[in-house]
């Protein structure tokens, strides 16, 4: 559910815009009209000196970003794969090569496997509950309501607060005899009170609830942007043809919104795989007996708290492979249709 990465943690490596050219190798195609044969005003003259000056200019433009990116994004990923073959605490020299042992250990550890199940649970609940909820609110905000702007501001508010703040406030609010328990008792629903953050059977659902609180606004904003791109004439035409509100939503709005929905599902899943801050702080580093570990909290718990750098790196590689394979597969098989022209196929 948390939307993925760094623009809102990670925008997508995909194009939603059906007017753009198809994906190449699962990566975004160049923006419309940018192609290698386009005439380039800074082409320079044919002389050798000018050619070199031009190359240097291009290098000067590219190198700051490229150096930073290679050194701090790509290199560490490769290094991590290397470390994962060692039994290493991060301090001593890298000597104890253990091959795939770290991977075998991880896949045999019930706590790690449980962390994968927890992430899977969050993914499923997000797709089944959080995204439809966000869509419903986007539709609501797309109506002519008084105070629409204020509502949008408020709905999106939790997303702007940091995960840490959300985690601390909710932790206090959910503590035994805290605000939630007190409120339930006050309205005569004391029987519903649970050990929200200490019962291993409940804790992941509590996490899901707070994650939803924090992140639904992001998806709502995406849907709202998608809804505003739909020409109102289409829905008006449907109404003239006698379609009910529900039919018009089902057969006109929803298909046109499908590319946005597929993208938001993508970001939600990728985000769930990276869930860390909120869980780490709210459940105090993974909950009682690891009952709220996500893959990333598990990795940090082993890598830093216990000084198992090699093992932690292996866990990171597993997590990375899962999200990488998912992302490539999703772009190939699910988002591909969006570039093939959602507008024309949607009506068919």
């Amino acid at each position, binding site marked *: 559910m948390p939307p993925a*990465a*760094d*623009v*809102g943690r*990670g*925008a*997508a*490596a*995909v194009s*939603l815009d059906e007017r753009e050219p198809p994906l190449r190798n699962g*990566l*975004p195609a160049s923006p*419309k009209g940018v192609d*290698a044969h386009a*005439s380039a*005003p*800074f082409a320079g003259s044919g002389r050798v000196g000018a050619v070199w000056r031009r190359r240097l200019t291009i290098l000067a*433009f590219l190198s*700051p*970003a490229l150096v930073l*990116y290679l*050194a*701090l*994004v*790509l290199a560490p990923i490769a*290094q*991590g794969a290397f*470390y994962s073959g060692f039994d290493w605490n991060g301090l001593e020299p890298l000597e104890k090569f253990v091959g795939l042992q770290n991977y075998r250990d991880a896949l045999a550890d019930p706590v790690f496997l449980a962390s994968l199940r927890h992430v899977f649970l969050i993914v499923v609940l997000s797709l089944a509950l959080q995204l439809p909820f966000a869509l419903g609110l986007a539709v*609501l905000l797309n109506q002519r*309501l008084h105070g629409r702007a204020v509502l949008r*501001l408020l*709905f999106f*508010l939790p997303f*702007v607060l*940091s*995960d840490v703040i959300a985690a*601390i*406030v909710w*932790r206090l*609010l959910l503590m035994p005899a805290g*605000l939630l328990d*007190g*409120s339930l008792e006050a309205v005569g629903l004391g029987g519903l009170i649970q050990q929200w953050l200490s019962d291993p059977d409940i804790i992941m659902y509590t996490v899901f609830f707070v994650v939803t609180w924090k992140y639904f606004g*992001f998806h709502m*904003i*995406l849907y709202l*942007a998608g809804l505003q*791109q739909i020409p*109102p004439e289409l829905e008006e035409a449907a109404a003239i043809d006698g379609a009910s509100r529900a039919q018009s939503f089902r057969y006109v709005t929803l298909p046109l919104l499908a590319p946005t929905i597929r993208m938001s599902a993508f970001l939600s899943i990728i985000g769930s795989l*990276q869930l*860390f*801050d909120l869980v780490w*702080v709210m459940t105090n580093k993974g909950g009682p007996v690891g009952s709220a570990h996500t893959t*990333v909290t598990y*990795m940090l718990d082993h*890598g*830093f708290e216990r000084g198992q750098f090699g093992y*932690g790196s292996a866990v*990171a*590689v597993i997590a990375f492979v899962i999200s990488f394979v998912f992302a490539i597969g999703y772009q190939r098989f699910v988002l591909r249709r969006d570039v093939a022209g959602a507008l024309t196929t949607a009506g068919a």
Partner: protein
Amino acid sequence: MAATVVRSSRRSMRQPLTRSALYAIAIGVVLVIIVPVIYAVLGGFRTTGQISADPVGLPHPWVFDNYIEIIKSATFREQLLNSLVVAAITMAVVVPCGSLAAFALARFSFAGREAVYALFTLGLLFPLTVAILPLFITLRSLDLLNNPFGVALPQAAFAMPTTIIVLRPFFHSIPTELEEAAIMDGCGPFRFFYKIALPMSRPILATVSVLAIVVSWNAFLLPLVVLNDPHQWTLPLGVTNFSTQYSSDTARILAFTSLSMVPALVFYVFAERQIVSGLASGALKG
């Protein structure tokens, strides 16, 4: 990019019942969203004794000591300043570097251009979380631990793909005629970039900057790993630590947490447009 945003002119809802149902839902959601925030702010005006005696009640009497104490404390101001410094460096690195690269990728044609662009977009699939252990080792060997640059530089590096993806189409949309005219006037690529392309791109640069600031301001994992020295801590680290240190003093934690929300909320109110449009375009245009 030429997407025109069409305001929906829908059939007005004639049935007052539907309308009030919608308002009821909206208000219900608003309550769930806002209650934790109000609970935190009001809780800061109570004592821990008041909170445990009646978790649901209002401050009675109002207590101002928690807030006053924290505002007066050097710790809070120090952490606020650290957060500002890290966010400022992140932005000051990612926006210039990202615009230079996006400009080259949009306005020059050269062999391997699409490969370089693809390399950057690949970065969207490499979240900071999976790189955190080796990143720690790298930063340690560069002697950047306990240093604001140790947080800001990796943040800038991980924000590079989005920044480039958002900026490139924008630079590409600058008319070629403008560039030709500039060349006629003896303007080189750097001058054109600096004097014409950048000023033209102010709104989108604002969006990219705002996003970098928001991400940096809320960052937790990287500072957690890089900053061990309490004097270097940013607000998210400070808040977390405060909540463990005074774990029995709920009111103080709530006051500290509420105060640390304030800068983000103020920023949100002023930059809402950039945040919202930036997130939507970053996610959808990419």
